[in-house]
């Protein structure tokens, strides 16, 4: 299946005969470390994660069911030159995303110029009407982006998704590195791995840089839906590492368009909210009136410029899958140059020609809901059963505008430790891009997700995926 033709990031296409240039040290470490020893370390890592409580809960299961995400001890390695090219592409893309959001909530030039159709922006459920006409500090909306990348060859990287709302996973990036440093310290002698532990500091600096102007020592908080949320560990991890308060909606109140948090010493004014709740739950006065998570009056305070919300309300317009298909044009429009990171070829099923192509090739394609996420509501043609294909065919015909389709890519593989020994497994990659008053910063790392089932292309943790540490090599001994 997919694995056979896939590019392997250690072996290239040599099928295990010869490591790619620059990756010999990793190959040597792998061949010289006994399998039982790797097993032992992997188990030690997982038991450490369990005792730390690095868990997630799967939607649809009992809320109390906390699972840990499987961790793979074999790191995924990028050479310095691979990273240099990637980060240039990421910076370009995220700057375009922010320019696009600024534009669609401002002058809407890109629509007037006919680059993106008006209806897919303005009639989009992700378009936040309340945010139109308000410009946050520095014109930055998507302060934190988690750009999902896949790879099919040595220099072939594609953007699979732009997560511009509340991307998660950065705590796994940091905890995976801690586990590797503790369990495989020798690897860091063999390879010049660039450190990533500055991420919380960079995040805090970014938050400070986007505070409403004229505030000297801004008070930043992290707003979480609460400790039953599946990503709560990450919320508390980040708040802890940045030294800011972790608040729930009920800890905040708005008075005269100013946000206050309730403390043991009385109310304290809040200037920046790094929110990990969706737009719909931010403010029950404007959005979901049933929500107990939000803060009544928060949007009014935001629109007065009295508090900065990170990411800004309304950024969902940039990571919608219908907008995604226009990203090459969007990047070209704002950057004035070709995108450095291409999109995966995408058919918009709302267009009749595309739909008929997709219906003809359904068995070879990946079909996604425009507003789906987490690997739910998705068809992977080559591995789907006949009845699944039949179901999607009917759904596509009934509501074509709800779907996009992409070719099934031969995602790259990385050696992975399984109960059948070290075998190739498909991976994707989510680096985290910060945009603040001082420009774009990207910590040299990211979250590698790995599909642990043989041949599987679905890496989501809710669908049996695991994670790996991602090494970005520095100057010494770089061969890429």
């Amino acid at each position, binding site marked *: 299946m997919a694995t056979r033709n896939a590019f392997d990031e250690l072996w290239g296409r040599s099928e295990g005969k010869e490591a790619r240039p620059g990756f010999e040290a990793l190959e040597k470490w792998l061949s010289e470390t006994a399998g039982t020893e790797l097993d032992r370390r992997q188990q030690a890592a997982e038991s450490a994660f*369990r*005792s*730390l*409580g690095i868990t997630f809960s799967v939607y649809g299961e009992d809320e109390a069911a906390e699972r840990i995400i499987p961790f793979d001890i074999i790191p995924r390695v990028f050479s310095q030159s691979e990273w240099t090219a990637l980060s240039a592409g990421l910076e370009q893309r995220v700057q375009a995303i922010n320019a696009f959001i600024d534009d669609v909530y401002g002058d809407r030039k890109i629509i007037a110029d006919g680059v993106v159709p008006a209806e897919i922006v303005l009639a989009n459920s992700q378009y936040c009407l309340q945010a139109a006409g308000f410009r946050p500090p520095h014109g930055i909306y998507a302060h934190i982006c988690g750009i999902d990348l896949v790879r099919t060859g040595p220099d072939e990287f594609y953007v699979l998704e732009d997560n511009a709302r509340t991307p998660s996973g950065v705590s796994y990036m940091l905890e995976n590195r801690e586990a590797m440093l503790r369990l495989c310290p020798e690897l860091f002698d063999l390879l010049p791995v660039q450190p990533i532990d500055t991420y919380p500091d960079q995040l805090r600096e970014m938050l400070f840089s986007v505070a409403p102007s004229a505030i000297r020592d801004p008070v930043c908080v992290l707003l979480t839906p*609460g*400790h039953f949320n599946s990503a*709560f*560990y990450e919320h*508390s*991890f980040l*708040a*802890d590492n940045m030294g800011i*308060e*972790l*608040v*729930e909606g*009920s*800890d905040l109140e708005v008075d005269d368009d100013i946000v206050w*948090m*309730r*403390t*043991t*010493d009385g109310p304290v004014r809040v200037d920046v909210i790094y929110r990990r709740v969706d737009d719909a739950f931010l403010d029950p006065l404007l959005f979901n009136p049933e929500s107990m998570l939000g803060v009544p009056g928060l949007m009014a305070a935001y629109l007065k410029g009295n508090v900065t919300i990170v990411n800004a309300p309304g950024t969902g317009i940039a990571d919608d899958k219908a907008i995604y298909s226009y990203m090459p044009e969007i990047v070209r429009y704002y950057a004035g140059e070709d995108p450095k990171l291409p999109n995966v070829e995408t058919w918009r099923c709302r267009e009749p020609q595309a739909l008929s192509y997709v219906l003809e090739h359904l068995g070879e394609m990946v079909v996604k809901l425009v507003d789906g996420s987490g690997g739910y509501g998705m068809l992977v043609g080559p591995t789907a059963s006949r009845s699944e294909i039949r179901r999607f065919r009917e759904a596509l015909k009934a509501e074509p505008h709800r779907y996009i389709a992409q070719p099934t890519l031969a995602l790259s593989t990385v050696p992975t430790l399984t109960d059948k020994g070290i075998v190739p497994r498909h991976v994707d990659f989510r680096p985290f891009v910060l945009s603040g008053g001082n420009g774009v910063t990207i910590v040299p790392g990211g979250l590698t997700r790995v599909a642990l089932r043989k041949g599987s292309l679905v890496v989501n943790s809710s669908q049996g995926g695991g994670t790996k540490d991602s090494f970005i090599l520095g100057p010494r001994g770089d061969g890429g």
Partner: protein
Amino acid sequence: MLSRTASNLYWIGRFMERAEFTTRLLEATIRLSALTRASGNASEHSVWQGALAVVGAAESFAEKHEALTPSAVNRYLALAEENRNSVRSCIFAARDNARAARAAITREAWEAINRAYLDIRSRSGLGGIQATMAFLETLTADTRGFEGALSRMLRSEAYWFMQLGSVIERGDNTARLLDVKYYLLLPEGEHVGGTLDREQWTTILHTVSARNAYRLLYREALKPWLVADLLILRREMPRSLAACARETVELMTELSSNSGRQGEADRMARKRLSQFDGLEINRIFQSGLHEFLRRFISENVAQDQTIAQQFRFS
């Protein structure tokens, strides 16, 4: 600090302390039960009834209409989900609070609570007496691990709020333990009962891990009025009511000097401490030990409420 976080921390302190106390109570009761078996079922029954009474669980246990056997009480106090003061319920509640206040506590403190949770979560039954004792030892080690982690925390609000919860709970526990056995604690010179009474006093000391403390401080054989003196008045004894009153004042002082403000909870704590000035055990016996303990318990409840108000817990 966020008011909600302060409340979470305070309740971590209370629940962990309650879990530890209940664990020790079970250990001590198993020991006493073994010693009384020789004197017939009636006294063994009263031993277990007493354990239920100490943690205020006698009524809720009776509502279950289950035979009052050692294993039933053990299970009810250690593992029962329906008992919200069982060791299991306390550890679950402590962990819930710790999860919510995760950023305010150290990784070590979190891991200690989480370890206790993992140890008790998987446990469906207690098994035989050996297995029960081994399990209680595990839990004691877990709660001790938490105390160790707590002692290594930065001396800041988070630490003080957790300690404040612990000390309020500790005072409550000691007073309840004494109150259930108050009729065994006789004033100086009164007729001293038989072996069984002596074992009851030992059990009290065992429950608050004070047997060594007794020997060190009094250097004489077990006397009931000295047991009462130790657990009510001796400031050297961290679980005594006087020590708890003093520690409450100290913690409130740390918290208020941090914020620069004082309130009703501070005044109340100082007033309670002043009641111990120059107090002697004989005077307590004269005016009634039981009444003294009941008053301490109800004042402790009031103290808890003033703390919640002063720091805007809800």
